[in-house]
């Protein structure tokens, strides 16, 4: 392996360790990235949002394509949203401003959308006051748009997912205080 590629591989490995990523998998043509976080503890760095993480890795790998292809770290990983991430988010909720907050969890499997349509404003954002029963988001399943309502009243203190992200049953969506 060329010295330059080796250096980039080292940086990639450090990046993965710093963000508590236990498993990492990458395909090439479309750049699919899959991650699995280590254990149930939140990563050392503040829980990074997955799309930021994906762009960061994409930037890394664009600079190190040869390293990525040969990287022995490529291991099958879990879809984000399986146990470790959900627990990490819940654990992080204990620590930060979400401590003691009510977590709104997804009642169904599907794709999360934060707005009624691509060009609308989002239903809610951090800082908004919401009433019990107020529509917070949409989870799309089998082409049906399901409105997800708040099951508590209060202020939105955290949004755990990004629009377009797949979510599983029980996955934390919002923290309400």
């Amino acid at each position, binding site marked *: 392996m060329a010295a330059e590629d080796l250096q980039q591989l080292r940086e990639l490995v450090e990046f993965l360790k710093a963000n508590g990523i236990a498993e990492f998998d990458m395909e090439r043509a479309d750049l699919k990235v*899959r991650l699995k976080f280590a254990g149930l503890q939140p990563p050392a760095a503040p829980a990074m949002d997955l799309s930021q993480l994906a762009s960061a890795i994409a930037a890394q790998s664009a600079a190190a394509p040869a390293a990525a292809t040969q990287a022995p770290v490529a291991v099958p990983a879990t879809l984000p949203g399986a146990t470790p991430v959900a627990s990490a988010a819940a654990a992080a909720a204990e620590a930060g401003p979400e401590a003691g907050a009510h977590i709104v969890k997804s009642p*169904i499997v*599907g794709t999360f959308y934060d707005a009624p349509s691509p060009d609308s404003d989002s239903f809610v954002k951090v800082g908004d006051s919401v009433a019990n029963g107020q529509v917070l988001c949409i989870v799309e399943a089998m082409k049906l748009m399901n409105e997800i309502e708040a099951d508590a009243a209060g202020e939105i203190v955290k949004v755990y997912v990004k629009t377009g992200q797949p979510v599983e049953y029980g996955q934390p969506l919002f923290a309400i205080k």
Partner: protein
Amino acid sequence: MFRKVLIANRGEIALRVISACKEMGIRTVAVYSEADRNSLHVKFADEAICIGPPPSKDSYLNVPAVISAAEIAGADAVHPGYGLLSENANFAEVCRASNIKFIGPPPEVTRMMGEKSTARQTMKAAKVPILPGSDGVLENEEAALVCAEKIRYPIILKAVAGGGGRGMRIVRTKEELPALFQQASTEALNAFSNGALYMEKFIERPRHIEFQVLADEHGNVMSLGERECSIQRRHQKLIEEAPSLQVTPKLREKLGKTIERSLRDIGYWNAGTIEFLMDEDGEIYFIEMNTRIQVEHCVTEMVTGVDLVKAQLRIAAGERLKDIVPEVPEIRGHAIECRINAEHAEKFTPSPGKITVYNLPGGNGVRVDTAQYAEGVVPQYYDSLIAKLICHGANREEAMNKMQRALSQFVVEGIHTSIPLHEKIFADEEFRRGEFDTKFMERFLERQKGKGRD
């Protein structure tokens, strides 16, 4: 070949399918309820998606949740395993509409063979011997009496929409028929919202013999021989064997050809099993078809060398049978399977909980299919099967001896299992002689009670 398959099941069969996919380089997606978060099928799949709370109806049987999971994971195909959604024609249709390949027969065929009296009519039309019975639904008691005269007592009345023993009555004389007809009909109406009944000849001491088939999507069908499944308790199989001591090579070939022709006629695809009853005279009659892979598929795998789950995947991907199973396999040796359930070996009460010790036997010709592990938890929400112990030997005697040895080394602590029950069965004279029928377990348990009293 599929790039990614979602396994719409849990437990040992989910792990079985995941393993076959892994061997073929196919990515796997597991779905799980909250009770199965730490399951082996979840741990060993490439991806896993939580689809609901513990109850099956809200998770594993929840069609929108399963389909949604397949969509967000980008799965090309779904393998439904056995039980759960595997024979649900509606689920197969939704898969088709969602452009996800359902690994099994077309929904129309599943529907046709799933309805008992339709299945009988279909097989009869294809010249498969069926148990003498009514041609469809019995209009009333008078029609039932006429039919019973023709096919001769004893007869059994069965619910058209039924299963699990409900809406069934055995009638031995014409005097008892009218009252029993009413009882069966009412029970069926209450249980299945459909009081319609049909009639079949009743065999007092039947043997349950079933044939394994594979069919590709190009009209080719192959029979892979039979399994003997007479060791049952309350219609639940406990021990299965291949081949059956009662099936001669001539019968195997003749019935095999008849089955192949009938399944070609109905346009069957993928794996399936045709169940028969054999009467005291060795006559064999069709009773029903299971349009999926079965729990006991392993014994057929051991004697034929054919990996049935891989065959299912390849068939669904469009491959031809001649490339999957080039020649009709020879039946080699004898295989026996014991279903290890999490239940008390004598009281049969379910025994969910945490397994503290789990030592599996191994060795030449010993196979264990299980998704449990030490420190694993058996949840109370699902069926009690935790492992299948399969032994293959040169003949039945050797297979039985291996099974006894393997059972003695299968150590499970923390929960009760049926291992002690199997050990007693394998020491039983009647079982060892192979002269059993579906009433075996009743007689065996009577003998055990007798021993208890001595």
